[in-house]
């Protein structure tokens, strides 16, 4: 979606300011919101692309006004409500008021380090061949899906060079809607600064994105 999360190239946010000491968390609720989000992935049954969409799927003004973990927490609440795992009256009451829904698995303390160490690899076996090879010129397609996508607006319509064929990976645009993993070839595509930003771009800079094959078409130039 063309939402508040797609920030590449926007103006007006001011300089990057690092905070002193940089604590990992800034309040106890941030710790709990972070851990709840990670722990609920297992019983909740959603995937990372659904989580990302739940975070970005709000009015841009709202997205930009919220702090990072406020966005995480709001997404967690909405994903649980959508699945009937929790209801508003329960959060208001601060207690469970309805019987729990059966869930597949709950994250036990014994499993935490194992689960983190395993992670969630996204590369998949395939018997298809990649359409592009290193050095090919490609254009990022002009697409504007209202659903989740990982093709940022600032590269759409622009021509770049395939730098690396990464492998076949879960396709977020499908995975986020529940349409399945639909693995696709993934490439690193490099763009010149001037191609992306015109005369305002830095001629000594290049920018790459990792783009799945459905995002790309062959370019002539």
């Amino acid at each position, binding site marked *: 979606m063309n939402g508040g999360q797609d920030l590449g190239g926007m103006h007006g946010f001011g300089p990057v*300011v690092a*905070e002193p000491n940089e604590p990992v968390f800034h309040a106890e*609720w941030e*710790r*709990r919101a*972070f851990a709840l989000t990670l722990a609920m992935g297992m019983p909740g049954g959603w995937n990372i692309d659904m989580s990302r969409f739940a975070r970005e799927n709000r009015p841009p003004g709202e997205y930009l006004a919220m702090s990072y973990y406020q966005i995480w927490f709001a997404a967690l609440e909405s994903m649980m409500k959508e699945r009937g795992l929790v209801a508003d009256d329960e*959060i208001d009451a601060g207690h469970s008021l309805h019987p729990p829904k059966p869930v597949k698995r709950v994250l036990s303390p014994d499993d935490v380090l194992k689960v983190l160490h395993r992670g969630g690899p996204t590369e998949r076996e395939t018997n298809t061949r990649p359409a592009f090879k290193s050095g090919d010129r490609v254009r990022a397609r002009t697409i504007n899906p209202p659903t989740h996508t990982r093709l940022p607006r600032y590269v759409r319509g622009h021509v770049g060079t395939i730098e690396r064929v990464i492998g076949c990976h879960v396709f977020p645009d499908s995975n986020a809607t529940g349409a399945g993993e639909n693995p696709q070839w993934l490439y690193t595509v490099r763009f010149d600064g001037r191609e992306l930003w015109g005369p305002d*771009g830095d001629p000594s800079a*290049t920018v790459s994105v990792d*783009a799945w094959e459905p995002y790309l078409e062959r370019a002539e130039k």
Partner: protein
Amino acid sequence: MSGHHDHDHHHDHDHSELTETQLRVRALETVLTEKGYVDPAALDLLIETYETKVGPRNGARVVAKAWADPAYRARLFKDATPAIAELGYAGRQGEHIVALENTAAQHNMVVCTLCSCYPWPVLGLPPVWYKSAPYRSRAVSDPRGVLKDFGVTLPADTKIRVWDSTAEIRYLVIPMRPAGTDGWSEEKLADLVTRDSMIGTGLAKSP
């Protein structure tokens, strides 16, 4: 993505929406615990892991080893994920890692314009600025300007390569080894490797 104006709950004195957030998070945790969806001990362990165990010291060890051990360096640039796993760092948000070599000719810098993708096993959780709108908006369009915000000025003939982490590939910058460190142990070298130097918004410290 506004800044953090909240305080630790022990001395939270205003009745802001953040206080409401705090109450709501607490309420939700209670509900989920009562329903049996989460085990509070697992939550504690998740927090402890990312607050005290996993952090940029891991990445610094990888960089120091790459500086000191040519065979390791070769393995790291060939396929970083198993090379990093040799040191015990692997898993969530680091399933597919690529190491990027900074040289006098090319400086690499990593961003996630769409969210906050970051190589957790080697750098820990990202700092606030990495997740913030100023960095995510300008890293791709004005990387030299962003570097200036960090007090870094690169030679004009150094090319800048920005990596937008739009997929599940995570990028770790291997900064240039500072001069005057010949013969240093890996442990001593690791002290020169800053977190920002592994994102590409900084350089390694000079001895």
